[in-house]
């Protein structure tokens, strides 16, 4: 089956406009944190969960720490070539 070229061109345009998307995403993230001031957990399951921005910090910190520790520290130790298993 042949894929639609119109859709492809649309995606190419979107990729070219990635800078604007980035700005929009920052605004969305900011809006989410602001919302968090008004909407909070009524039954916090974790200590600190009631603080606005807790889950934002949780996601950001763990994403950065996991990427760094795994790729920069663990990966060089356990990485092998594809052929090493043959």
């Amino acid at each position, binding site marked *: *089956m*042949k*894929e*639609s070229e119109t*859709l*492809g*061109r*649309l*995606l*190419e345009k979107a*990729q070219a406009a990635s800078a604007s998307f*980035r700005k929009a*995403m920052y605004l*969305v*993230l900011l809006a*989410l*944190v602001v*919302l*968090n001031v008004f*909407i*909070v*957990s*009524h039954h916090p*399951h*974790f200590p600190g969960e009631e603080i606005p*921005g807790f*889950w*934002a*910090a*949780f*996601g*950001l*910190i*763990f*994403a*950065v720490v*996991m*990427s*760094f520790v*795994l*790729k*920069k520290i*663990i*990966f060089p130790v*356990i*990485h*092998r*070539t*594809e052929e*090493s*298993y*043959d």
Partner: protein
Amino acid sequence: MTDVSFVHPSLAFVALALVLPWLKAENHAAWRWLLLLPPVVAIASVVSLTLGPDGPRMIEPMRYLGVNLQFGRIDTLSLVFAHVFAIQSLIGMLYALHLPERRQHIAASLYIAGAFGCVFAGDYLTLFIFWELMSVASTCLVWFGANDRATAAGFRYFLFHVLGGLLLLAGLLMRHQATGSFDFMPVSPDAARYYDWLILAGFAVNAAVVPLHAWLPDAYPESSVTGAVFMSAFTTKTAVYVLARAYAGFEILAVMGVVMCLWGVFYATIENNARRILSYHIVSQVGYMVAGIGIGTAMTIDGACAHAYAHILYKGLLFMGAGCLLYSAGTAKLSELGGLASRLPLVMICYMVGAVSISGMPFFNGFVSKTMTITGAAEAHHTWLALGMEIAAVGTFLSVGIKLPYFAFWSKPKNDMPLKPIPWNMYLGMGISSFLCLFTGLFPQTLYSLLPYPTDYVPYTPWHLLQASLLLGFTGLGFYYMHKVLHPKPGRNLDFDVLYRIVGRLFYGLVSVPLAFLDGLWNDVYEKLGLKGLWQSAMATIVFDTKGIDGVLDGSARGVRDFGGVTGRLQTGRLQDYLTGVAALGLAIFALVWALW
């Protein structure tokens, strides 16, 4: 109670597997529609099944070799798994419809038949039969990846599943010895005996519980494009079903489940092969289910079943997307892909539906099942376990939700690599999966109504929506900052299979070095002492015979030998000599009788 009869879905799949060898590969255009028949029968059969007034129903057991085999136990737990198995079998067969290779379809049919057999099995013996059928058929699906690497991975896969099967067999036989029954019923954590633990270990192999998981990311990436779609659905989820059936509330499962959640995402974050990343995510996602079962409250068991249901749909979809990349571009390695979004936009969109579903984005099915398990864990006061699952959720979105599609579809300018056109049926399979991921996400009651325990969990509260959006949004921001660090590199990473290899080599070494040495030593001793002794005793016997015994018997033996020599010479072997002899003898007897009468 035995008041129900139904068309066992396994029958339809076994029938297909028996018919296929008689069809010709060149008539594929005609017989391919047959492939869809068993899944349709399965869906009709499962949808028409209802519970009895007292709940569970049993079909009449079949008597075989002096034991009762219970092929049909129908209750809420078996129904929810059978339901999604039936749907996924249709999607998988659709995705494989273009293949003229009959062996692929035969292996897939038998594999699905095994999965249905396990889900409806009412006793351990029936379970074991179908368990092994799955293991053999799925090994074939790995081998049909059809290259040297797939062959080797298939052998490793099979070896590991033989181990799991043997643990299960040993456990169920010892259990029978001790209790006198093969009943497949829940085990109380306080009353578990050694045989229950053996069975649990056998189940843990198929559930890919760390550290028994390394067969999965080793074999699945090597299996055939369509085979991986089936495998991602049935083996581990059948194991989740049997764990939920017999081992709910086992604390060790709760802890190991969370270890699986984290282990899977850690490896997925640094892997290069798209199908291996997805395989590690099976370990991770099955971890949520195992943890839910281990915690063992009504809500977490519901969460585990709901997550299994959702997972089969979105993981199948992800494997179909990665399979399309492999089929079309000839590789699933992120380091060789990139810049394909504008050339394979539909594949990208379908993949993204799977990616946001697995990440638990609101309005997709992962959201309604994953939050249920995590909330259940937190409400059961397993705060640390729930926290571990949240960290795994970050890692899931990081690796499968953003990293994989970013490096496969974007990251580079438009890629000009040659692409093979993808058959329509593969798109249709992905389309149906995408629809179902969104549908069950938007209408969670359709899924919740199938669960074993009644639930009043409401996923769509403002707080749940905001919490999920914050978590995923800021994980995305984390990726944006770290995307250069996460750039994929060719190769693969050591896992627990290193340990399996060490154990294997030790065993091999034990056989080849000390045992071979002992064998050699024994040979030497035998040659030097045993053989020589025998030889000399034989010589002594000869001397004793000729000189000793013969002397005593006054040369009679020598006489017999000489007589033997003469008669030997008389026996010429010629017919006329014998006839002459017989005639002479007859004449002599006649003369004697005449003279004496």
